[in-house]
């Protein structure tokens, strides 16, 4: 346990140190860690605090403010569905329902097997293509509940989004 944690800390320290920004802040350090690990473990809060001479509470205040940070290891794939106004008008509700049924979820979140994270997005910036969804950062337009389900069915066990 202690050894694993030490390896993790090494990785975290490495990603904090190798940032190529002119000004390193708590926020930039948190982003750097999330970029490399995909999430912020407890150790990340402590290491960023130690590095930026802040307390763990200050760092947590920043981390918990942004909904983009996650604190548990990410699933292998990320599926995002747009529910912005345009997509909503052209049928995003059906897409969402279809995917929730497929993943047996009741809302945003990780599937119990840790394979897929489902997230709602307020705009994926492709309104003309609506309804839109994104699978592992690849955009798909004019989807129907059926094509959406088909897309996620074919997701393999390999890590897709990094």
């Amino acid at each position, binding site marked *: 346990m202690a050894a694993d944690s030490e390896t993790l800390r090494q990785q975290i320290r490495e990603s904090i140190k190798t940032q190529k920004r002119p000004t390193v802040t708590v926020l930039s350090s948190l982003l750097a860690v999330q970029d490399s690990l995909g999430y912020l473990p407890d150790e990340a809060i402590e*290491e960023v*605090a*130690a590095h930026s001479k*802040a*307390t*763990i509470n*200050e760092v*947590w205040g920043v981390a*918990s*403010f942004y909904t983009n940070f996650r604190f548990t290891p990410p699933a292998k794939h990320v599926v995002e569905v747009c529910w912005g106004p345009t997509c909503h008008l052209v049928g995003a509700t059906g897409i969402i329902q279809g995917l929730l049924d497929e993943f047996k979820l009741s809302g945003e979140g990780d599937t119990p097997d840790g394979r897929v994270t489902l997230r709602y997005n307020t705009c994926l910036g492709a309104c003309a293509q609506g309804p839109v969804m994104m699978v592992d950062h690849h955009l798909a337009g004019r989807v129907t509940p059926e094509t959406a389900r088909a897309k996620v069915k074919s997701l393999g066990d390999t890590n897709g989004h990094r």
Partner: protein
Amino acid sequence: MTTQLPPPPPSPPTQVNITIDGVKVVAKPGTMVLQAAMDAGIYIPYLCYYPGTKPFGACRMCVVKVEQPGPDGQLRPLPGSPASCTTPVAEGMVVKTNLPDIVDLRKGIMDLLLSEHPHGCLTCHRIELCGPADVCLRHVSVNDRCVTCPKNERCELKDTVRWLDIPMETPLTYNNRHLPLKVKDPFWDMDMNLCIVCGRCVRVCDEIRGDTALTFLNRAGKSLIGTSRGTSLLESGCEFCGACIDACPTGALVERDYKWDKANRTVVTTCPHCPVGCQMTLEVNKRNKVIRSIPLRQAEANRGQACFKGKFGLDFVNHKDRLKKPLVRVNNQLREASWDEALDYLAERLPKHKGKYALIASPRGINEEAYLAQKFARVVMATNNVDLSSNLRPELTAPLSEMLGHQAATNPIWELEQSKGFLVVSSNMTEEQNVVVLPIKKAARAGAALIVIDQRETELTRYASLWLRPRPGSETALVGGMLRVIVDESLADAQFVGDRTSGADALRAAVSAFDLAKVEAATGIPQAKFQDAARRFAKAKPAAILYALDTLPAAMRGDCVRALVSLALATGNVGKPSAGLYPLFTGANEQGGRDVGCLPDYLPGYRRVEDPAARAEVAKAWSAEVPSAKGVSLRDMATAIGDGRVSALHIIGDSANFSNGQLPGFMESLAKLDLLIVQDSFLTEVNRAAHVVLPTFTFAEKNGTYTNMERRVQLLRPAIGPKGEEEASWRVIYRIARRMEAEGFDHEDTVNIFEELKDLVPGYGGLSYARLQKGGVQWPCPSPDSSGTPVLHAAADRKFAFAPVKLEEPPAHSDAEYPLVLARGRVLLDPDGEMEVVDAGRRNAVRRDEVIEMHPDDARRMGVSAGDWLEVIGRGERFKGVARLTGPQRGMVAATALFGQLATQLDASRTADPMMDVPGLPLTAVRVEKASAPAVSADLAAAD
């Protein structure tokens, strides 16, 4: 459209005229409208504003309408409804606080706040009818009842709602958050269902305390107060000062003890735990118990702050084991007796011990009591054997009197906020003089140079710009080395040295011994490092020096203080605001006790015992003879008892120093006494050996004065009455003296004693109880028209001499069995260490592997590598830990504990006054052995 820029103001105005609700108000520039209104006695409701913190503007309760003159002189409204707590005053501004639309806006905002705050206490139709014995049945749902809020009827939110006169028929639905309460951390309960997220606690903890043990969680509607990942305060960096509780306007944060009790009166008095002299408002309930203490915001000594001791450590006054009747030893057993019996017993025996009597007064005793005690010893018992039980380090002040001519800190505590540099030598202020740390942390966070010389890791080392860990006992060499660098590099304040001291040549002579290479060898600190320290300190002006010299051997402290005084003089840091020297002793009224002559070598007013003229003055005032031989000091007491120079000992008040081993042989020596008299509030280890035990008041019953470490004389006012036959300590001495038919003891109350002592203590001449009622005054205050002296030696009326100091090698540590020195530290936060907070039954506990810092050379010699398990074994202590090869010195190991571990111990302690037992951090002799990893963490086992 053209934008017209306002013309640049000719010069910054010193005052600003504004109008608030038609009242003309004069305010200082930069003041916020809310503060200006409050200063003028106009109330604007507010919830998030808190004095001493930066303007925040979160609650929007203090919204007002503001008009301000434009460049053409015409009044123009500021857009919207600005919050008065974030709007600075401007010349000609017109503020309206009570326009109908503003009142409506406030009510709307309050409606929103109440939609998430239980408010049965405001809406229940039985508010006017309900009595204490009534049972609340179906009127209000269980979670929202007034009786489920610990702040019921002392809640700022409720008071504000009532002032706003809101009709409580809100159209909004009320949402209870249904969050679990946090009740497993020491001293402190948190109920986030009652929080209105005003952020006062977060800002006080950050801006005033510098701890940031709390933070805002999440954002927008879900935002609340908490700690990182919802962890316990034990690992979040909390110092358990209770400042967040004092700031909380609702019942969200409260003291756990007496949580549901209501006060029926309050009294402002002085805290008895340390020499800061915090002014505290004690809340007393109808059963004569002190239930809460709240630091006073207006007090100059503590400015609304306190610490874990003052906030959570005053319950001892209510303890059931308080002594209520005198005890006299009959047939070798302590038996309850009447006062008359006890006094007769003493009056019969005491005269036989004239000249062989000694008195140890309590640092918690008031000035009047200390004065009367030393007078009793000197006049009635014909001896100078008087001392204070906290006076373990007289060398902290003796060199000050030699070199500067006084025996106290030169400057006030809060001036440190403006200091640009600090040198802190071997002091654990966070635990021993807590509030002094606050201005230092604030200044350090604003960029002041903070140089810490200490083997131990303490809270302050986290804020230090430079932390030097010299070999134990080489502090003097290090300070001397710094001074030498300052002289060699011409960094000294030449003008000050020329005008106010014996001169540059004398300074050069004083540091001649400190050859830099020799300093490096003696201290084990590389030259470059202490040169850096010297340069930083010399360039920071003004700079202050604070020293407790906890870890120095007694024989070396005097020289270390001399070196520090020379350093202050050389850098011109004497007689100026925010500079100076602060000796850090530990007793609450140690300063006052010394001032009034409770010392073996000084009479009242620091008159030397050996000086015949000084003796004559005192003898004349007392119309009695004053003994001429120096008395036995606290540290020599055991020896003096052993060789028969002292046969009767009179101890006033208990002290941890008797039983904690700081006075070797003391406890054993008590058995050799013919007579041991103890005046105390509890039966302690010392009292058990006593022949007579006389029950006395605690600070909460006393009427008198304390003098704090910055020479501020402050009042103690009685908060509670006696529980049995106990008496004020001064009155006990008075009664013994009367029973012995002594002359000069006819004081009716403490006022009489104060009037007598102020004639003998020159600095107190202008003080009186009536004057102190308005707040403390710093001596010297020689006459009633003097306003006291915050900064000593401001007037250039004399020249100070530098004292040459020898460069001594630190004493060799030769202990075959325990060859290493252990420097134990304690910190609030340990972010890069592995630790876990576990639920240990009723309370949280810290599970943490101790880290043992070791010098790489020692480790190599022992075959230890980083990460190995070690066991540290000393006299009466042993613990295991993981080796880390970062030790700063050969022959030394260091281990740092977490303050949270101490906090859990104090909270769980069953002793009457746990804060007396806060373990110091002395250096101890140990040996280190390789060990196997422990199966269960020791801390956890202890907590169960």
